[in-house]
């Protein structure tokens, strides 16, 4: 698959000056750091590939930077290119600053940009011969600032034409995302290769969707007790406080009604914590402490077992439970295996 190229075609950078300033300008606008990068939608910033472009700086550190930007859209402000070792540093950073100022001032930006790019071009044309000579030597793949094009350095002993370089960039992007997915999908550490991973991902998504369906059916049957539950939940919350030494018993029923939603929300948001405290209330107060690992295994789908005790060091208890809370995502994979069994259990 060939990379898309913008309408003007992408000449090598030493000819950049010959592009009409307006095109430079519009291309810089279109690839403004904030608007251009983190669109997850169709429309990745169009790019073309330059073979053996810029100085000696190795820029592997740029790719993790790009990955971070993709996956944390909140970070879009810090898109300016990462540190580059080569002599390119001052000019490129200046250029990127110009990028940011572009939106404000059109005309001045224009002339400045052409000026900067001419600087850039001279340097890059100088370094191009040097880099062409040295492209066969050891160097790493790099990505540059976002305007328009992605500079890729050919690796040692690999083809240097633009098609294969573009291919390589694409493949690396895809493999980055596959790695991220590997972290998301539980139980995928041992599987290598795209096909197996895709299989796992598909299975996981299907199982999640089936769980949503099953849970919605359960909610539909259980839900009728909603109003009643809110009150009872709230009174139990109030019951907990005297035990812990809080004196909140002065709240009235009206306040209960108002706050019931938040209470419910805090219930759900705090997962095992509240569940365990509730369990403790329903059973006796002096039930034995459970070890964190065993508590982890007793999932929500399986039987709910007595969990915690109310003793003086509740802080310790909550710390344990927060740790368990973070381990919850890893349980869902186990659930899918035991889902059918537990389905039968619940239905009976």
């Amino acid at each position, binding site marked *: 698959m060939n990379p898309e190229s913008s309408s003007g075609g992408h000449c090598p950078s030493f000819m950049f000056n010959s592009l009409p300033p307006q095109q430079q300008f519009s291309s810089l606008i279109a690839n403004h750091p904030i608007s251009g990068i983190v669109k997850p939608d169709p429309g990745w910033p169009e790019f073309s590939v330059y073979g053996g472009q810029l100085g000696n700086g190795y820029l592997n550190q740029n790719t993790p930077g790009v990955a971070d930007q993709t996956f944390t859209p909140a970070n879009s402000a810090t898109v300016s290119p990462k540190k580059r070792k080569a002599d390119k540093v001052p000019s490129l950073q200046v250029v990127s600053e110009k990028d940011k100022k572009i939106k404000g001032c059109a005309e001045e930006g224009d002339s400045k940009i052409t000026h900067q790019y001419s600087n850039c071009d001279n340097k890059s044309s100088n370094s191009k011969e040097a880099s062409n000579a040295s492209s066969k030597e050891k160097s790493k793949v790099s990505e540059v600032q976002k305007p328009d094009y992605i500079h890729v350095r050919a690796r040692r002993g690999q083809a240097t034409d633009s098609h294969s370089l573009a291919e390589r960039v694409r493949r690396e992007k*895809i493999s980055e995302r596959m790695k991220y997915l590997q972290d998301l999908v539980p139980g995928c550490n041992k599987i290598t290769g795209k096909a197996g991973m895709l299989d796992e991902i598909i299975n996981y998504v299907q199982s999640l969707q089936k769980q949503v369906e099953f849970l919605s059916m359960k*909610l539909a049957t259980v839900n009728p007790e909603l109003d009643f539950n809110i009150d009872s939940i709230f009174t139990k919350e109030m019951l907990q406080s005297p035990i812990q030494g809080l004196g909140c018993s002065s709240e009235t029923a009206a306040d209960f009604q108002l706050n019931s939603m938040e209470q419910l929300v805090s219930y759900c*948001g705090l997962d095992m914590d509240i569940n365990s405290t509730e369990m403790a209330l329903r059973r006796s107060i002096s039930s034995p402490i459970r070890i964190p690992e065993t508590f982890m295994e007793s999932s929500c789908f399986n039987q709910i077992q007595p969990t915690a005790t109310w003793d003086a060091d509740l802080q310790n208890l909550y710390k344990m439970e927060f740790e368990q809370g973070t381990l919850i995502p890893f349980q869902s994979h186990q659930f899918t295996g035991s889902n059918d069994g537990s389905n039968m259990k619940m239905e009976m």
Partner: protein
Amino acid sequence: MSASQQLTPTNPNSALKIRLAYRFLLTLNTLNAKKPPNFDHTQIHRRSHRVKIAAYASMASVVGPKRAWSRAILWKIRNRGMLARNKKRIHRISTPIRLHRHHARRRRNPNRVVHVDPFVNSGLEVKLRKLVPGAETIDPCGLLDETADYIKYLATQVEVMRNLVDLYSTI
């Protein structure tokens, strides 16, 4: 100690859970308020369908229009009346099917079927595109991105629902 009531979320995951839970509970409440729940067999089936739609809708609306999958879900839900009508029409009438299809698909449908060349693995790609909403027409790179986001939100939604079920069934 107000630990049990005012525990602040210590990681972004629980903040997300709280948002999802809140949204979902709102829709559930409106569902319950509208129709008094009864234990009729068919009614339960219908209610569960509505709850499922509410779950997806709340999940998508927490994300907003930032993601392709959330937009696709919201579009599907908003237009499910129209989609149902189009389906019925297509099934009943035999000959003008093609014309109707053109008509139906002309509205800005993010779920339109477009033949995309899969990048490496044909069968699996297409399957994934069908599973993730709104992912039929995305390039393969963005597809993996959307899948990751979708999985994250879906997993948290499942957790929230599971906790709710627990809550209701044990009280």
